[in-house]
């Protein structure tokens, strides 16, 4: 396989890693008020993802950075073309990251309530935004010969991209509920499981619809989703979580597979489309990057897996220490 194609696959893998990992921590944030009815329960929720959300977010940073390095034109056209949605994602992520760290720093109900709102917004907007942006790179944008968006931000709004937004948000919601069921004990765990079973079929529907163009992809996603909910209903939360990972992998594979060999099609003229061949960096850059990724990726997988192992314990309200602030 050509190096540029390898990097296309690697970028797809990085996005999978991101949606799989940060997907659940977005979901936990989305459900903060639904599953956490008082402050201690909300602290349980936040602490299920406390040690890992930052590491999860780096998958996005590396996916975008790798796109910059391996496909500069793709990076440039997509981020400038999707300027406003990307800005909303950034604003939301800024608030969210700070909110996790700051919400418990002052012992005041009002202080916590405000940061919880930031977490809520910060957990809904990025999956919606990324769903829109990633779908836009698959269905294409009205790009001119220079690779610049024509027609302003409105050109991003199509039924596919809006469905994509709902698809990623819906997936994150279910994934977060299943993760909460997997990581907590007591009442929160039961609530999370019930919620995932009730809401799951509907929340996964946009994703199945988005993949409707591919019978195989759509079928795999529906099957894995159904399996996941079944395993969850009999209390096998870990298996349900893994099956949702398979679902995310199938969705990313279907979307990126249908995109190849384009990386960002132009809807104005196929001659303006960015492809793996015409948007990629030089062979030398790709070689250097391949070496770095060849050594770096296994290490990342190893130590991140270890983190999940260290913090594998289920937590409940009885594990939460008393608030201590100056």
């Amino acid at each position: 396989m050509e190096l540029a194609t390898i990097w296309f696959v690697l970028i797809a893998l990085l996005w999978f890693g991101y949606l799989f990992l940060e997907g659940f921590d977005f979901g936990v944030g989305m459900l903060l008020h639904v599953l956490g009815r008082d402050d201690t329960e909300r602290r349980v929720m936040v602490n299920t993802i406390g040690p890992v959300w930052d590491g999860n977010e780096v998958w996005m940073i590396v996916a975008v950075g790798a796109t910059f390095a391996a496909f500069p034109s793709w990076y440039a056209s997509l981020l400038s073309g999707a300027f406003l949605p990307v800005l909303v994602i950034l604003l939301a992520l800024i608030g969210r990251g700070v909110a996790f760290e700051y919400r418990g720093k002052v012992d005041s109900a009002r202080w916590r309530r405000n940061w919880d709102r930031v977490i809520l917004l910060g957990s809904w907007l990025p999956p919606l935004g990324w769903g829109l942006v990633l779908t836009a790179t698959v269905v294409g944008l009205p790009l001119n010969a220079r690779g610049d968006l024509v027609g302003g931000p409105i050109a991003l709004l199509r039924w596919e991209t809006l469905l994509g937004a709902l698809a990623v948000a819906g997936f994150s919601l279910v994934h977060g509920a299943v993760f909460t069921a997997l990581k907590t004990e007591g009442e929160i765990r039961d609530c999370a499981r019930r919620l995932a079973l009730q809401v799951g079929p509907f929340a996964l529907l946009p994703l199945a619809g988005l993949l409707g163009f591919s019978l195989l992809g759509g079928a795999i996603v529906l099957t894995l989703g159904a399996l996941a909910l079944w395993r969850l209903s009999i209390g096998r939360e870990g298996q349900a979580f893994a099956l949702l990972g398979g679902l995310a992998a199938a969705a990313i594979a279907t979307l990126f597979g249908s995109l190849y060999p384009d990386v960002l099609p132009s809807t104005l003229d196929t001659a303006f489309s960015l492809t793996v061949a015409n948007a990629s960096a030089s062979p030398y850059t790709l070689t250097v990057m391949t070496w770095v990724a060849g050594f770096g990726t296994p290490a990342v997988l190893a130590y991140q897996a270890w983190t999940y192992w260290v913090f594998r314990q289920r937590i409940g309200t009885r594990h939460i220490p008393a608030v201590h602030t100056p």
Partner: protein
Amino acid sequence: MEVLDIARWQFGITTVYHFLMVPLTIGLSLLVAGMQTAWHRTGNPKYLAMTKFWGKLMLINFAMGVVTGIVQEFQFGMSWSEYSRFVGDVFGSLLAIEGLVAFFVESTFLGLWIFGWSRLSRRVHLACIWAASLATVASAYFILSANSWMQHPVGATLGPNGRPQLRSIGDLLTNSTVLAAFPHTMFGALAVAAALLVGVSVWHLARRKGTDTPVWRASVKLGGWVGVIAFAGVALTGDLQSKLMFEQQPMKMAAAEALCHTEKPAGFSIFAVGDVTRADCESVKSVTVPALLSFLANSDLNSEVKGVEDLVKIYKAKYGENYPNDPRMGSFAGKPIEYVPNLPVTYWGFRLMIGFGALAALASAAALWLTRRGRLPKGRWFVWAALGGIATPFLANSFGWIFTEMGRQPFVVVPNPSGVDGVWMYTAQAVSAISTTEALISLISLTTLYGVLAVVEFFLLRRYAMAGVAGVMPPKPEEPDEGENKKSDDVLAFAY
């Protein structure tokens, strides 16, 4: 305003803001790692208290550094897409490597450190803070390599598509510019952390309350010494950098000195009276140290240093008199190129950087002297000076960056005078084809959010700094009954 101006303001504001957090993160995480090592080796509870206290301040700040860093990576593509297309092959690779080998380590091991108290063995827990803080150092190295390439492009050739192509990643990572900029930045980061240690500790010592005097005394010692050493390092590496700059970006240094005419020998301007805004410089009266500039530039008291006027002639001959007559250049199309950077900003930026750096060192030295051999600092003036001293290295860093970035205008990638043909780019060419409205929405929303968060962070840092050790170390709980022993063990050692 045009998109170009808005995008430049946004880049300037977000970068200077990000770089308020970053040096504190780098410096403080290294010092905290050192404190925890001291605790690990001696078992002295004083060092544990220091680790917890300064570690908390580090974390309050760390969160902001992380989230504002994401904006930095994204805005190249959002607002500077022409730049990204042009340099992605070279510049993008450094960003990707930074993410893959530094950010992953930093974020993962920081999470392990925050939540791993009593969950990990002490040795492993200690290794986590070292991994996280060394990753911040590595991250600084990669991003400074990227920045240094913009100041002095090496390791690339012009490819067949008219864009630079990476030729040697090794050349990028050993660029003479980054070899000088990296230690300079690291010492600057340590100076920031040192000033915080000194300021907060002196405040606590002067109150003469509480039982934590050993903690503050050890902190003020550590901060004082690190501050003094960091200043020496900053000065030495700064000298190295300026020598390189005379060679690589002579216009920047001439502007920094408001040196209009070529002089031999050239004097170093300490203070200028009059109008430095005009490139003709006739109105500028400058207090100079004779021949010092020649020495700084070439280590030779009698050498020639080129002035702005002569350099403009050279630049025009080499890179043309006018911008390309391309509609993409907006209002710059076909206009004459202004090769002289903003003189007051470069001139005063350079002096404020050095001045505030020196003030920070002075505060450190004074703190060491006034707390020597068990003495406690006396006098409100000194407490205020130490608290004010916290701001000085931040200001020095900010002015340093403003100077070095504004000083390379009108280029975003400065041509390398000793090679790499054609690898340079005007800032005016680099901007995205977005609308003014989009750019303005972005500038206003980011600035507003940053402003609000600055207030929150300052409020929290102040609150925790004033609360002292008691604020981060809850008093030991009452001895539990036998039966309850297991249950209390179950409570997490740390939770959000």
